[in-house]
């Protein structure tokens, strides 16, 4: 926190270190998008910069939200997003195809994105309301499982496997942090492993293909395994220091598909090498650590759970995307937040950061006062 006489008090109270990290990550993203477009701000870099600025402003604005108001919106927000998900499903049924968004006038809303912070808030709220002694009881589990299961199922049938997995992972994280016994998760994992073959039989063809290719990408290097193979070539050929900015042949000659969206990390590492990749991962790690600290220092159970869940959202975004582009996970269509081109991921992550900043501000401002728990 910069404390200087010149800077006005409200500005000085912003978490500047965090904002700096976010800006560094976004700048790396913009530079990569500039390169991916063949050295041009259009069509991606400029648009992305505008999107970033808008959402940073929104996030900073959100940092003044009170914990109490966040808390009170948790259930209404969750309900609203759930309704939108059902609407999307209905529209999709009418339109006979995969439908992931709602067109509301000029803007397009992808409700599944909103569900990521919403599920965190609602589960945090649920476990706050749950008497601490009940955490080992059955009633600590089934309502949460329902709150998590319904949206996850709705998103899965959209079909959007990547987001569904993320929702489940984020929700499970909150439940785990809330103190549910570990064997529950181990059991769930085991059940999942046995259920996987069954799930496979229900998958869409393109999803099955993705799973198969993940298991052996080189089996079909020119066909559907192309994405992973080319991504690994881009990353692997970068070496220690990369091929040099604007010198990436994989992305510039279009061998790397989706080099500006899901595979933006490959584009970046091809040009900046291992070093660039590690710096970016490190920046993300610092952002997540910051979020986890907010959780650690939280004085309310809601803040603790919400902060952990929101940090986990950012973590899963980054982890799934990087595992995907480096061939450690199937291609499930999860972008790298703040770096990949596109507004949705930026929006979700900035909403999370805005909420985290709000929770962090409460800790600081509340530090001097003797606030007890705010009644629900």
């Amino acid at each position, binding site marked *: 926190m910069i404390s200087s006489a010149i800077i006005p008090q409200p500005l000085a109270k912003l978490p500047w270190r965090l904002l700096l990290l976010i800006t560094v990550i976004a700048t790396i993203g913009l530079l990569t998008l500039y390169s991916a477009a063949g050295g041009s701000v259009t069509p991606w870099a400029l648009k992305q910069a505008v999107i970033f600025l808008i959402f940073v402003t929104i996030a900073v604005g959100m940092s003044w939200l009170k914990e109490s108001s966040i808390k009170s919106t948790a259930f209404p927000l969750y309900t609203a997003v759930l309704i939108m998900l059902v609407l999307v499903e209905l529209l999709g049924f009418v339109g006979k195809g995969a439908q992931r968004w709602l067109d509301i006038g000029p803007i397009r809303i992808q409700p599944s994105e909103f569900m990521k912070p919403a599920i965190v808030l609602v589960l945090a709220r649920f476990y706050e309301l749950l008497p601490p002694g009940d955490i080992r009881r059955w009633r600590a589990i089934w309502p949460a499982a329902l709150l998590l299961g319904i949206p996850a199922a709705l998103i899965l049938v959209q079909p959007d496997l990547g987001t569904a997995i993320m929702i489940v992972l984020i929700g499970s994280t909150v439940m*785990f942090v809330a103190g549910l016994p570990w064997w529950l998760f181990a059991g769930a994992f085991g059940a999942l492993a046995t259920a996987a073959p069954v799930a496979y039989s229900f998958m869409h063809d393109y999803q099955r293909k993705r799973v198969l290719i993940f298991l052996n990408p080189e089996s079909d290097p020119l066909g559907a395994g192309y994405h992973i193979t080319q991504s690994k070539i881009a990353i692997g050929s970068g070496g220690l220091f990369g091929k040099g900015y604007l010198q990436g042949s994989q992305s510039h000659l279009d061998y790397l598909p989706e080099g500006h969206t899901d595979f933006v990390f490959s584009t970046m590492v091809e040009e900046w090498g291992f070093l660039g990749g590690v710096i970016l991962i490190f920046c993300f790690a610092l952002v997540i650590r910051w979020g986890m600290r907010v959780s650690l220092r939280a004085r309310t159970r809601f803040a603790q759970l919400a902060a952990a869940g929101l940090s986990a959202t950012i973590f899963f975004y980054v982890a799934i995307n990087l595992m995907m582009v480096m061939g450690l996970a199937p291609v499930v269509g999860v972008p790298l937040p703040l770096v990949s081109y596109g507004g949705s991921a930026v929006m979700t992550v900035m909403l999370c950061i805005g909420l985290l900043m709000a929770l962090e501000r409460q800790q600081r401002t509340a530090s001097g006062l003797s606030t007890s728990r705010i009644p629900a």
Partner: protein
Amino acid sequence: MMLFGGAQAAVGAVLVGRLGWLAVAENEKYQLMSENNRVQIIPVPPRRGWIVDRYGKPIAINRSSFRVDLIPQQLENPEPTLRTLAELLRLDSDDLDRIISDLKQSRGFQPVGVADNVTYEDYAAVTVRLPELAGVSASRGFSRYYPAGPAVAHLVGYVGTPSAQDYEKTKDPLFLTPGFKIGKQGLEKTLEPYLRGQPGGQRVEVTARGKLVKELDPKPDRSGETVQLTIDAGIQEYAARRMGPESGALVALDVESGDILAFVSMPAFDPNSFSRGIGRTEWKMLSENDHLPLLNKIAQGLYPSGSTIKPAMALSFLKQGIDPSRKVNCPGGIQIGNRYFRCDKVHGLMDMHSAIERSCNTYFWATGLKTDPQQTTEMVSYLGYGDAFDLPLAAQRYGTMPNPKWLESKYHRKWQAYDTANTSIGQGYVLINPLQLAVMPGRIASGKLIQPRLLMGTPRKPIPPLNVDAEHLEFVRKAMASVVNDSGTAVASKLPLDGILMAGKTGTAQVFRLGERGHQSNWALRDHALFIAFAPADKPRYAIGCIIEHGGFGASAAAPIVRDTMTYFFDQQKAWAALAPLEQQWGGTLAERNARQLDAFKATARANVA
């Protein structure tokens, strides 16, 4: 909480580790893969090695050419594209038929030649319109050129675009490159590994969609090796032209080394039209011709040797102790068993020398019956008849030199007197190829067991002398000299040279029926004419074997051709002077006649269509 933080840190470590593994540890592998993506090589067919004669004169060379191809896969509107091309390149219906049939047979990525040896103007006209002609490729390259055309057709064969099967066998992308040709026949085929060379390539940077970004430094090709033949291009072409309209084969050898100097099978196709991609009409013309221009008569043709066997017979008689001065009366034939064998005429009293000189069958029948058939035929085999030679020919039919043992194992019957009689005059089971027809006089002339050679590069092995008495050889050589120079059957074919005599032996092989000779109006039923010769008679250097299919008497059809070809070895001017009036009579040189024949055939084909 800590557990979750720890898990996150662990995942982070895995990610960094994986990144390091890919980008640092496996960097070399992926860098190579990235280069393979970025840089594509557009193969440039290597220039084919030359084929030259013993003096370095070109037999098969490459000419720089422009060519137009179709890539079936990229062809969007076949019909309008072909129409435009036909107009631009003035293709006739024959060419179009070939292109369409090639298109049907080709695999999607295998180019189909539209036109070879396109003029620069036509090439430019196609290039300008390439944007609207999807699937058309116009390029510069090399095409195979045979300066002597049909004269070397059966020697070198021809080259052609690899077929789909050829590609399947090798999977070599070079086989799909427009303009790349492989040997399809003859030496072009058997010497393919030497002639092909290493392809080069234009290295280009291309996008994933195949768009060219920039050209990088090209990788040069390595042209194929030059192969030197033992052939003398001059004698090869002369002999081919001297054959005129006849159907036959001629082989000339150096008697000391066995080097094949001429290897002529006529009539022949023009290998240049094959390397261009032969038209349907021309193919039809060639395959319908009863003189079989597509058949390599040297390697594939088998003929009864006729009386050319007699010098070898005489040698085996001498070896078995027959006195050469022993006389046999020829009353015009001889009774063997229940059949009367008729000689050409009544020769009267014959000794060995005069029997060879005048080709008296009665003498050889009678003397053959006095000798051991196994020993007699062994000598003939030893001198080359029925022998297979180690030559780079795709297929070699080497015929049969019968003997009692062979007859027993093949037909399960005893050798009879009439077998001796037939064999003594080169009929019956005796079948030889034209190569053997040259090797035999070559071995007799030099007294060495020469093996015919075609490639200058093969190591020369020491040639053992014939296991035949030198005096016997000298006796037979003298008799063969008398055939041409005294009162023999080929006196009309004396060399027109001072001090150089040719020795030879005529042969006439029955095609239709034994016994009746004379004029046959049906060409296909006439006898084959054969002649073997060497010169100079006293110090032999060259040997020639020649067969003219259905030429009638050996003396009348084959011997004059051998005489003129032999003359060429010693005096080219005299040889050309002898050929000039003949060519005038036949209606032009070989090339002129070939061209006219094709035009006439095309005209008939067109008339038939219309």
